[in-house]
């Protein structure tokens, strides 16, 4: 034996073990007696009672699925509804020689190879005696053909039900999301009894985040069956409680305008009511048809979407991460004012480039010849880079980070659809933690013009803009306006969306920055003055052109031929009117080129439409 502290005594061990075996046997004996006792209780003592119950047990309980809530837009358009449908389903255990039957059916209903594959996959993964859908939403012809030939297909039958439909399809896919068949992972997160008659569940978007409200409460009916199990009559019925209808803040008219204005380009357009946080427009283009997912998407179609370079399934508005570019400048300017680093009228000399003291690397301004002497208002109006290089250097990354974080950049906004991206507001601490590298001064400079590591989602930009618009009121962006019907719902209090406001030391700083943003669209030299001309209301904005890749120093980017996917992103943020703003907008056009030429006109179209609706007379512009 090995060198053990105590010698093992084989006999003691054996005796000990035998005692344990005897005790275990006694334990088993007791348990068997308990089971037998229970069986005697059920089968002998209460046998009469249970026999009566089993004779009367011609009543079966059949669950009834609640109709799912309808989703409406703020302007009363149906965004998600239920349509009657007929599905061809099979209980594999009741279908003998299922392969032969399937072949026969395949020729009759022209089932595709792909459908058959999906079906056999589902059969393998299905529980015993579970209904497996072969084809959803049969056409009237298919329904007729099958019904006439039904006797040839034992175990196959048609089930009537409701099928989810999204009338606006692509236009609202990235907001509403879609429902699809309940998957096994879904089962863990739901009350399975309540879903006993439900086949579909929200997978993304509002359909997912508001699943609880939309679903409703299962009902059931007691039915009498004969000895063969066929239903004779309904004895008792507890109706399901339909899911609640949802009213969203989304404005379909403007949503459609935004998508039209994007004109096939990739990107996102978001408009928020800054006073409430209600989202009016939430467009991510290109988009996809959510109806394709409801009854199982074909593999070919799914592959074409998921591998497309256009990435239609990708929710750019929610998850797209873009350098904010110059749209970050109003917030940097605010930091300069708040920390006392800049006065509004203090001038910075812009020769067209900037260098850190003691270095030769030139950080270029977008305008090669420079902007000359610029104060804060002009720095925004003309989007002078040098002004912000210098300001960022003087502020330092910590203070810059502190101010931008107050506007929610690089953080999840908390919008009521799932899957939001956080993006990134860099700091020295972040860089040390993730890359184990020190922060370099040059990185502060480019952070000042929204480049480098900094990434924001379009939604974050819109949210930050809405805070700016209301001079500090922070309302969480959201879609849900009202829940109607369903179980008792307390009315939604506007205040649940209110976050701690952004308070400045001096409220005048808001006015200074907003005046600068006003000059962007209405000033004589504003970068977006073309988009401001003739506007129905005065508004404030800021253009941004975010570099996708670094251009070598002293090379004029404009003369270089750049492939499409490396072209600059065009951005624009805006809000209107200047006082008591009612709409805050963020536009991002991927590889769109310039913010002023591409993104700003899209925001202008939204502003035109928004104010045309209730103020038919355009305000004469005096800017």
């Amino acid at each position, binding site marked *: 034996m090995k060198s053990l502290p105590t010698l093992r005594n084989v006999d003691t061990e054996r005796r000990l073990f035998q005692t344990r075996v005897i005790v275990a046997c006694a334990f088993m004996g007791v348990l068997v007696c308990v089971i037998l006792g229970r069986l005697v209780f059920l089968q002998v003592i209460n046998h009469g009672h249970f026999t009566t119950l089993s004779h009367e047990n011609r009543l079966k*309980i059949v669950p009834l699925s609640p109709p799912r809530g309808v989703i409406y837009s703020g302007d009363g358009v149906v965004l998600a509804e239920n349509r009657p449908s007929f599905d061809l389903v099979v209980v594999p255990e009741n279908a003998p020689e299922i392969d032969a039957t399937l072949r026969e059916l395949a020729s009759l209903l022209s089932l595709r190879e792909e459908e058959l594959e999906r079906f056999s996959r589902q059969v393998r993964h299905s529980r015993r005696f579970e209904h497996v859908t072969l084809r959803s939403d049969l056409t009237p012809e298919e329904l007729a053909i099958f019904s006439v030939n039904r006797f040839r297909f034992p175990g196959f039958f048609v089930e009537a039900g409701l099928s989810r439909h999204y009338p606006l399809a692509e236009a609202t896919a990235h907001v509403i999301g879609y429902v699809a068949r309940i998957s096994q992972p879904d089962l863990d997160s739901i009350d399975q009894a309540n879903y006993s008659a439900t086949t579909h569940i929200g997978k993304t978007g509002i359909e997912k985040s508001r699943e609880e409200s939309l679903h409703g409460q*299962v009902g059931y009916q007691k039915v009498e069956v004969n000895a063969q199990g066929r239903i004779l009559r309904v004895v008792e019925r507890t109706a399901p409680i339909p899911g609640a209808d949802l009213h969203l803040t989304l404005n379909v008219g403007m949503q459609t305008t935004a998508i039209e204005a994007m004109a096939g380009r990739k990107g996102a357009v978001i408009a928020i009511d800054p006073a409430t946080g209600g989202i009016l427009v939430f467009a991510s283009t290109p988009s996809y048809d959510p109806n394709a997912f409801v009854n199982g998407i074909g593999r070919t179609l799914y592959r074409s979407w998921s591998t497309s370079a256009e990435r239609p399934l990708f929710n750019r508005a929610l998850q797209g991460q873009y350098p904010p570019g110059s749209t970050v400048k109003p917030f940097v300017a605010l930091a300069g004012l708040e920390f006392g680093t800049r006065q509004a009228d203090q001038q910075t000399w812009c020769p067209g480039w900037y260098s850190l003291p003691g270095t030769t690397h030139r950080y270029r301004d977008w305008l090669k010849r420079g902007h000359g002497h610029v104060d804060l208002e002009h720095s925004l109006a003309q989007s002078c880079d040098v002004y912000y290089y210098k300001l960022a250097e003087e502020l330092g990354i910590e203070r810059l980070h502190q101010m931008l974080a107050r506007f929610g950049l690089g953080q999840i906004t908390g919008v009521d659809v799932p899957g939001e991206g956080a993006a990134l507001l860099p700091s020295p601490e972040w860089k040390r933690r993730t890359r184990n590298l020190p922060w370099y001064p040059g990185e502060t400079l480019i952070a000042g013009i929204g480049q480098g590591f900094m990434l924001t989602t379009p939604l974050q930009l819109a949210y930050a803009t809405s805070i700016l618009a209301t001079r500090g009121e922070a309302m969480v962006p959201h879609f849900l306006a009202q829940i109607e019907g369903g179980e008792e719902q307390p009315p939604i209090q506007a205040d649940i969306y209110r976050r701690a406001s952004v308070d400045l030391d001096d409220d005048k700083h808001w006015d200074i920055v907003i005046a600068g943003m006003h000059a962007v669209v209405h000033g004589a030299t504003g970068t977006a003055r073309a988009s401001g001309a003739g506007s129905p209301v005065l508004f404030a904005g800021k253009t941004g052109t975010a570099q996708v890749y670094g251009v070598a120093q002293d090379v004029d980017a404009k003369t270089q031929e750049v492939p499409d996917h490396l072209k600059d992103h065009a951005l624009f943020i805006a809000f209107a009117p200047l006082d008591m703003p009612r709409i805050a907008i963020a536009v991002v056009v991927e590889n769109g080129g310039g913010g002023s030429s591409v993104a700003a006109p899209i925001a202008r179209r939204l502003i035109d439409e928004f104010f045309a609706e209730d103020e038919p007379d355009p305000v004469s512009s005096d800017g």
Partner: protein
Amino acid sequence: MDRAEGLWGRLHIDASLVGSVMVMCLLGTVVLYSASEQSSEVVVKQLIRLGIGFVAMLGVAQISPRTLSRWVPVIYLLGLVLLVMVMFVGTGRGAQRWLDLGFVRFQPSELMKLAVPLTVAAFLSEKVLPPQPSTIAVSVLLVLVPAALIVKQPDLGTAILVASSGIFVLYFAGISWRFMRNSALLGLAAAPLAWFAMHDYQRRRVLTLFNPEQDPLGAGYHIIQSTIAVGSGGIYGKGWLNGTQSHLEFIPERATDFIFAVYCEEFGLVGVVVLLIAYALIIARGIRIAVEAQEMFGRLVASALTLTFFIYIVVNMGMVTGQLPVVGVPLPLVSYGGTSLVTILIGFGILMSIQTHRIFHAQS
């Protein structure tokens, strides 16, 4: 020195164990035929699985306990790795329990049902018994780590079974009664914590036990209907294929977890006693193998596996008769379903290996 004599011994087959298991399987198949609405397809599938299980059982019986005890820690570690993998790349219905290896889908927690007790036994049989506190601590860790990973999947039922099979080894190794009592008290004290950690559906199952009418569509319905089936069976039963509860589809999962309800309805109390006797034969044989084993490893493994087998039976019967919450534990050797059947048969293969690899000192 001589090896076990006879043809059976040379083939490493324990005839009485195989015999009683076969009787049990036969009984199971007869019930399954009724429970599956006389589906020959289901019965054939089950027979194929039984065939695979028997081959595995005979195969495992050829491996000597020494080899087993040497290799089982490796299998245990492999099982742990697979369990961790399941968390990331697992598939499955209801929970992430399966690993898809391309040609076959595989449930690592099933592997652990055997690997845990064997590993603990291999570990303890090297030590002086009754085990020292440090030895107990290591053994408990060996049990709790895989159990925790399985709870995560989430599969509480399997986790409890895996953990108890390991605890049984400790029990047979002779940990003090006081230690067991204190652990049990600690467990009771922690029960409220477990309640908060439970998923909603799990809590409902426990509550349903006390008030089945509360939840007529969910687990409560199962309990009500299976109790009616059992009670209406009476002493002699309604006869094979004549259970109304079963054939009018009042009993859910009647081919799998609730097959005992079908059995009780059709064969009555008399049938249950026959079933229990058949099980008792298997268990008695297992205990005998444990007592006759020459080495501590064999004793611990044989006794723990036998006791675990018994616990399966009790948990399933307790669930069907409404005494325990509804956890998905099949009735061993009777319920329809492949993986656990094969595991149980492999367990019997290990018992046979222990029995037939004994070394006899020359006497004759």
